[in-house]
């Protein structure tokens, strides 16, 4: 009984954390190139809708993943045009972009389900349900493939940013765009690539939310998860591995909140849901100035 509870709980944490991990990586690669990617929430929502629609129409969940990738690239290109090439204010653009995505996704979904019947997408299934014990093998089979892809991406992102030459250049754009430009880097191109990669990852997060968890779409179904991912990046000090831990922690908070009544603690679950944000604020307070990429959020104009 006890073992069963833990196995359920751990797989629930992984399920809740997977979309967060994708989105956190999406925020992180952008921040490292000096872009404050507030539009993560919008990209995630767009990815969630695209994944559901493509998976339903093709009958294959992996087509949903592909569609989410496509939408992510498109979102990244739009954001890059606006915040890198023009460049417009990143925060204001991101917030407006989120509103537009909220409007467009709800609009499109309502038009497509005129009868009011929820579309149920074929979900990515785990090999089998969580077994009675917590063991790596049992867990590996109890989560969807997207969880493993997310973990792989964490590793790849870390290796790219911290163990390769291009990764170093990438980070230099985030630290000081001016110096990077003086050293001969094309700041615009690096930042555009970062936004496309970041939005792609965020859209994958949306796909993980729908195909790996709730296989349908509802208005504003991301409910601020993109911003939890943002919090995870700050809490994880802009490091992929630590951000992953933060996502797991926040995922655990969410999983606990759902189980709070079963725990019989008589404790209001909303306090658990408050935790990610409060912890992040505490972390920001403790960190001080010089931790994040210094040029994050600053538009770069030639000359």
């Amino acid at each position, binding site marked *: 009984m006890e073992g069963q509870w833990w196995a359920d709980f751990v797989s629930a944490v992984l399920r809740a954390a997977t979309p967060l991990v994708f989105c956190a990586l999406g925020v992180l690669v952008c921040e490292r190139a000096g872009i*404050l990617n*507030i539009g993560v929430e919008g990209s995630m929502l767009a990815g969630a809708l695209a994944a559901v629609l493509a998976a339903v129409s093709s009958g294959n969940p992996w087509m949903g993943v592909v569609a989410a990738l496509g939408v992510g690239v498109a979102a990244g290109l739009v954001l890059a045009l606006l915040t890198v090439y023009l460049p417009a204010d990143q*925060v204001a*653009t991101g917030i407006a972009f989120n*509103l537009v995505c909220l*409007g467009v996704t709800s609009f499109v979904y309502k038009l497509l389900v005129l009868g009011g019947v929820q579309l149920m997408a074929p979900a990515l299934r785990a090999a089998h349900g969580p077994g009675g014990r917590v063991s790596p093998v049992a867990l590996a089979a109890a989560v969807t493939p997207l969880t493993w892809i997310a973990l792989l991406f964490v590793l790849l992102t870390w290796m790219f940013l911290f163990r390769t030459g291009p990764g170093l250049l990438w980070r230099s754009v985030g630290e000081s765009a001016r110096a990077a430009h003086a050293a001969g880097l094309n700041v615009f191109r690096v930042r555009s690539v970062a936004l496309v990669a970041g939005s792609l990852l965020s859209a994958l997060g949306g796909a993980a939310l729908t195909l790996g968890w709730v296989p349908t779409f509802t208005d504003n179904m991301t409910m601020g998860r993109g911003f939890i991912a943002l919090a995870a990046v700050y809490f994880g000090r802009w490091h992929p591995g630590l951000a992953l831990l933060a996502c797991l922690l926040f995922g655990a908070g969410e999983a606990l909140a759902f189980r709070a009544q079963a725990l019989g603690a008589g404790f209001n679950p*909303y306090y658990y849901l408050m935790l990610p*944000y*409060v912890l992040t604020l505490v972390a*920001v307070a403790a960190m001080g100035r010089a931790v994040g990429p210094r040029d994050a959020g600053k538009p770069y104009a030639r000359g």
Partner: protein
Amino acid sequence: MRWSLALKKATVNKMLRAGWSSSATLAVASVVLSLAALCLCSYFAGASPLKVMLSLFEGALQGRYALTTTLSEWVAMTLSGLAVLIPYRAGFFNVGGQGQLEVGAVAAAAVTLSLTAPRPLVILLALLAAVAAGVLAVSVPLVLRLRRGASEVTTTIMMNFACIQFMYAMVTGPLKDPKSWYGTTPPVPAAYQLPSFPPGSGVPAGMWVAALIALAAWWLMNSTVFGLYLRAVGGNRTAAVAAGIPVDRVLTGSVLMGAALAGLAGGLELLGYTFRVAEGWSKSWGMVGIPIALLGGNPLGVLAVGLLFAILETGSRSMQALTGVPAALIYLFQGLPVIIYLGLRASAWYSRWTQAAR
């Protein structure tokens, strides 16, 4: 003397011309373009764009109930817009309006539900509590910005969600209506609700408060030393320090003012419009305040854009009922004009145009 006056007048004229020709024109153009996009979308949804536009505006303006709703929405939209605009001038991007509004409403609800006193006193105390809660909610991001140099954008976003979860915890916990099956406070006692003004007219009293505050903000930002300081601090911090302007004090003042208005918006909406704080009780007024502030550009512009947004928000329901176009399309309208506006303003074409105007 005459000469200097003439010079001043010429300068003022030039500034007025530049002010109008640039940002206001752009804002109007982006709103018009967005309305066109709205028409296009409704065409794709199989409805006549003309009918959609008519149903939007009639649904918001025709009949007493619709008008009262629109004006009540306007209160929140205007105050939320100002809550962003004033700190933005000083270089502080207050994304936390939503959270400040939510805790403002919670505080006001707590006062009206726990206090028994003459009506004006309770209303006054409730609104003061709302203001205080808004200020409290912004104090964390403000201190982190001043003491730790942390970007206020992310910290105010974190505070938003923390405040919303706190509101949920309150309406399902200590402030929960025992008679209700879902998370909500009891309704504000009829004796403590905000009346309409003039009495019986259906015009919410909050509207007059919001309009007066907008006018006061216009005066503050354009005709006082504080307004000048605001622009100096937001424009070039180093220069402002060199000029001996108390930079941190000006920043703090503007941020607290903004948050106070967001909290007040929560209190006014509770006492005059929704009467309950509950799960999903509010629209995303605080968030929409950001587009409103950016498009409005100054307090009077905020009033105007706020009215337009309030009309569309109220009208969207009748649009959905009459034409079948989903009401969620309105969110598109809340974001798109800002994107067009920011895009146009940052474009090379625009900088050439303003150079030519000079």
